[in-house]
Every structure is written in structure tokens, then in C-alpha cells.
């Protein structure tokens, strides 16, 4: 039996079908989860995909955070279930305070879509085990509210605890503090990042790279290995 990975759809979620595809390409089973359902259908892990849930109105992720499905996700995440937030999903995770800091409008104020180089700073999370620490990957970035901010103390703490999971290389595309592209919680089960690994799993589409596949194979290995 392979791992069951839940993919949440909020109203306005865009990359849910793409994320399901990435989960399948990695060899796991994708389980659609609906924002109104508290039931997580016995999944082993959850991905909060990208998009503009609730139109990103008020603040990105601010309204979705209060959905029934998030009640369960928060509870399970605290109990150790792996949760990955991609882009809008990352924004939701900061709004729920499962991850510290907040996401703000890009410093240049524009939506930006580009092939972005990152460094995977740590492979001791549930979602990065298949990478080498320090490995450089390129995956698409596309957002308008991608500027990561937190107060100095939080940033220092994140660095000290090795919880900066991904850093932008070459260009900082949005003014994120300390070039932070993604972070993890202390336990390493909850990870959020702005760029989109699910858009870099097939050589044919998008940028033609498959650098993002490691997220999904990591979790698969992690879960199947743990059984």
C-alpha cells in the first residue's frame, strides 16, 4: 500500500489538480480534501496547494484559515502529521501560526512568474529528505504576496534552529527577509514555501525541469519507511 496524500481545495485554490498530479507522478495516492469537510479521510499527509483562496481578499490565506478542514489540519499537524504549504498554502500556514512570520506584497508590487533558483538548506524535514542539504534546485515561482517577514528575534531563532528550509539564490524575487523562500516548524513535519515544486515534476511541461519531484518522493519514503 502506498501513502495517501491529501490535497485540500479551498474556494479559489488553483494548483490542486497540479498537486494531485505531482503526488501521482511520485507514486503516491492523491486524496482530494474539501474545505468544508473536517474529515481528513485517513490521509498520511496533507498538502495545502497554491492559488488565490477566497481571492486572496483581506490577506492571502486569512479567510481559508477559518475553514472546517483547517481545524483538523491544525490539530493533526500539531500531532505530527506532515503538512506542506505551497505558496497560498504557505500563506495559510502563517495565518494559522503553525509557521511563524507573515507574507506581504512583493517589494516591487508586481506579480512575478519566474524559474527560481533555491538552496535546500535542510534535509531534515518530512518534505526534503530526498535532497542533499545545500542542494541547489530551480522551480517555478509565481505570486504577488511572496515577501516573507518576521521580527528579528524570530528570524534569529529560525536560523539558529536550522528552520530556514529554503533560500532564494541569485535574485531575491520579492524582498523576503534574509532571502527566505520557505521554513519549517520545530518538529520538521510542517513546511511552507513560496515556489512551486508541483510545477517541476515532468520534463515536458513548465520549465522542463523535475527539481520539485523530491518533495513528493521525500514524503513517500518518509511515510512508507515509517510503516
Amino acid at each position, binding site marked *: 500500500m502506498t501513502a495517501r496524500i491529501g490535497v485540500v481545495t479551498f474556494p479559489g485554490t488553483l494548483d490542486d489538480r497540479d498537486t494531485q498530479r505531482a503526488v501521482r507522478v511520485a507514486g503516491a495516492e492523491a486524496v482530494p480534501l474539501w474545505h468544508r469537510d473536517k474529515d481528513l479521510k485517513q490521509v498520511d499527509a496533507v498538502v495545502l496547494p497554491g492559488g488565490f483562496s*477566497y*481571492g486572496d*481578499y*483581506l490577506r492571502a490565506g486569512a*479567510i481559508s484559515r*477559518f475553514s472546517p478542514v483547517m481545524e483538523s489540519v491544525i490539530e493533526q499537524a500539531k500531532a505530527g502529521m506532515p503538512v506542506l504549504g505551497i505558496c497560498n498554502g504557505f500563506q495559510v500556514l502563517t495565518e494559522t501560526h503553525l509557521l511563524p512570520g507573515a507574507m506581504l506584497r512583493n517589494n516591487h508590487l508586481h506579480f512575478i512568474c519566474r524559474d527560481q533558483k533555491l538552496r535546500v538548506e535542510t534535509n531534515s524535514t518530512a518534505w526534503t529528505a530526498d535532497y542533499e542539504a545545500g542542494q541547489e534546485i530551480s522551480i517555478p515561482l509565481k505570486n504577488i504576496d511572496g515577501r516573507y517577514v518576521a521580527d528579528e528575534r524570530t528570524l534569529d531563532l529560525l536560523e539558529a534552529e536550522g528552520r530556514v528550509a529554503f533560500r532564494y539564490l541569485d535574485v531575491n524575487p520579492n524582498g523576503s527577509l534574509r532571502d527566505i523562500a520557505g521554513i519549517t516548524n520545530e518538529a520538521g513535519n510542517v513546511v511552507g514555501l513560496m515556489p512551486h515544486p508541483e510545477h517541476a515534476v515532468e520534463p515536458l511541461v513548465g520549465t522542463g525541469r523535475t527539481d520539485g519531484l523530491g518533495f513528493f518522493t521525500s514524503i513517500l519514503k518518509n511515510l512508507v519507511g515509517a510503516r
Partner: protein
Amino acid sequence: MARVVVDVMLKPEILDPQGQAVQRALPRLGFQGISDVRQGKRFELEVDGPVDDAALARIHELAETFLANTVIEDFVVKVEEPAVEAK
């Protein structure tokens, strides 16, 4: 130095999807009794010199030509009282 505030709101007849989204979320958060929400922008301008009529007229012009799009938005210019509002 003084602070002038320009509030810019969508005209009442214009759709305000943001305000609407906020309002629709309220019952779910357990808030009743708010019949309408509109979301607009607030600009806080720190003005160097005295805020006399001439300065206000200029800021009014700034609001009209730049801060607001009067095709769809209304605006109000206010001089902020030096005393800080209680939170």
C-alpha cells in the same frame, strides 16, 4: 510636522469584492449583526510644513489625480488630530 490622512473607498454603487468576502466570512467566525463591510485604502501622509489651506488644497489635488481613481472611488482628506486615538 503633521499627518494628513486620505481615505479612499470604492463608490457605493461599485462592487467591492474584498469587503464582500470579509462580510461573508463573518458568520463562520461567529460574528452576527454586521450588515455590510466595505474595504478601502488609507494613506497617511507626513507633511513637512504647516497644514494650511494651500497645503490641503494640494493634497486634495493629489488625492484626486493620483491616490484615488475617481471613476470608481471616492476620497476624504482629513488632518489627523495630534492626539493619538486610543486603541
